[in-house]
């Protein structure tokens, strides 16, 4: 089987690899690059557990062919923190107990980051609709929505006070 050559950027690092042309970005992230933070909950784009950013746009890694990543910048959950300094969203998820089992958490954080990058002051309704593609079965979403709103407030505060 002819392998496809992919040249891409993952979490700001250049990546070159060979993959099956039918392999998804999720397959490659997890199995080739060891970036296991993106989870497969459904394989059909219905749960959002594999949410990643592609050129800053939120996508499900299970619905992108790895081959399509060539020339694009991919950000996964592993690229959200600054080294060991957690992103405000990550810290807020911890402080607000916005996770129980934690399987959906990476996807939610990546999705929430994409939201706050576009809209630093979302309403609760905007948060809920933006995150509708991320399923959580443990929390009932309450604490997740609060964590995103609280993180947004902190990030606005940080932006003002630098």
């Amino acid at each position: 089987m002819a392998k496809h050559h992919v040249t891409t950027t993952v979490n700001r690092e250049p990546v070159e690899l060979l993959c099956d042309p039918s392999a998804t970005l999720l397959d490659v992230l997890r199995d080739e690059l060891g970036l296991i933070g993106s989870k497969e909950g459904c394989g059909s784009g219905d749960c959002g557990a594999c949410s990643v950013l592609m050129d800053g746009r939120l996508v499900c890694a299970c619905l992108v062919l790895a081959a399509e990543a060539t020339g694009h910048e991919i950000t996964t959950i592993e690229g959200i923190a600054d080294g060991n300094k957690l992103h405000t969203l990550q810290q807020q998820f911890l402080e607000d107990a916005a996770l129980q089992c934690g399987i959906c958490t990476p996807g939610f954080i990546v999705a929430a980051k994409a939201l706050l990058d576009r809209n630093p002051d979302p309403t609760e309704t905007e948060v809920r609709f933006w995150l509708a593609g991320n399923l959580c079965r443990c929390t009932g979403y309450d604490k997740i929505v609060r964590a995103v709103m609280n993180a947004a407030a902190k990030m606005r505060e940080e932006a003002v006070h630098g």
Partner: protein
Amino acid sequence: MNAVEYAKPQSIDDAIRCLTNAPVGARVLAGGTDLLVQLRAGVVRPPLIVDLKGIAELRRIESTADGFRIGAAVAGAELSEHAEFSSQWPGITEAFNLIGSTQIQGRATLGGNLCNGSPAADSVPALIAAGVRCIVVGPSGSREMAVEDVVTAPGKTVLTTGEFISQFLIPARAAHSGDAYLRFIPRTEMDIAVASAGVCLTLNAAGVCTAARVSLGAVAPRALLVAACADALIGSTLDDAAMAKLAAAASAACAPINDKRGTIEFRTKVAGVLARRAVTIAAQRARGN
């Protein structure tokens, strides 16, 4: 096992050549939100996947004298970020925006939503109602056709080997016109439409409807353009009697199925309700335009 190959042509001609020379079963990839699910489920195993996103024309939104030309591989999120388009055609924008989650929005395309051939495709009734046409390119040249003529049955289109849609031609919105799209789903997001209605209408100064197109989705093997619905509206002031006639015409046009998403009775009734509600929204927009 058959090998899958991936190609990303950079021009329409290259893409046509690629598809024409491909073994049987080659598939076009635009947003991939349907194709990748089918791949994963083992429903399809195409020998070649032709990614159209390398073709500039398919990725552009152009404002022209006649309206807009939208590349078939423009993603929903990109279209809704186009302020001029979304203010002129809020119904189409909303319809496109209703396809799946934020994640899906970043990928799903107008061309893919149409060519997947689902009777429940959200963007299709809105495009039909707006009188949108599309350009089909292929080995024997290009042709233009109305959106309602593309899909023939669930999963089936008029496109032949080597053909794909390159662009959608969206007319400039006529004065005092407005469009709207509504669908019914059990949840607030993430479901496939159980019934849907797209409406585009024009009102004169007296508030009389002078033109209308009403399209229904998910209530027949393909999206319907229902002339009887338009007839119910044209010449009326969209009064209760006209609305009742519209809803009845919409329900009468339905030929749905019972499935895991809804019943025949439900789809038939709700199609009428949605048509009525969509007309109300479209009329409000028309009055504002």
